[in-house]
């Protein structure tokens, strides 16, 4: 049962790494969008990793990231709007 989840987790790495690089290296107006994309991919990745490693409690990490995305991205948007 673990194998398809592990393969899916491995296959999800390249898009996540590419968007993380885009969030770090592109111009400022593209960075916020790339951060949002990377966060969405991270949530999916954490869900898949929870099943891949068969650790039921680690699904709370995905839940935490999903809930903390709201204040984090709001703060980033405020910084981008006013100061960056």
């Amino acid at each position: 049962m673990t194998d398809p989840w592990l393969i899916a987790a491995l296959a999800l790495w390249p898009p996540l790494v590419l968007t993380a690089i885009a969030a770090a290296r592109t111009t400022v107006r593209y960075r916020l969008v790339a951060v949002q994309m990377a966060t969405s991919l991270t949530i999916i990745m954490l869900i898949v990793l929870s099943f891949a490693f068969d650790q039921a409690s680690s699904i709370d990490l995905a839940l935490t990231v999903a809930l903390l995305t709201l204040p984090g991205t709001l703060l980033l948007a405020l910084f981008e709007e006013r100061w960056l």
Partner: protein
Amino acid sequence: MTSAVAIVLSVMVLTVWLASIAFFRLPTPFQRIHVITFVNIVGGALAMLAAFLGDGVSSRSLKCTFIWLATLPIGALLSHVTGRALHVREGERR
């Protein structure tokens, strides 16, 4: 059941890859926001479906459902906030 999980997971991975390719192909950040919505809705729904197929009704799959349901309004709100921030930054709206 494992083959059903594998099929749903492969569709999810294909969805994410398609979204990532579109993310880097689209020229403006406003267009790229659409891709994030696609990943949130379709990718999250497929992950939730795979969780239910793999686990049945459990606390983990119910948390997956909650994550997906929370991501929908949060993603919509953040897309609006991001678009507004970009507009303000470019001086189109004060």
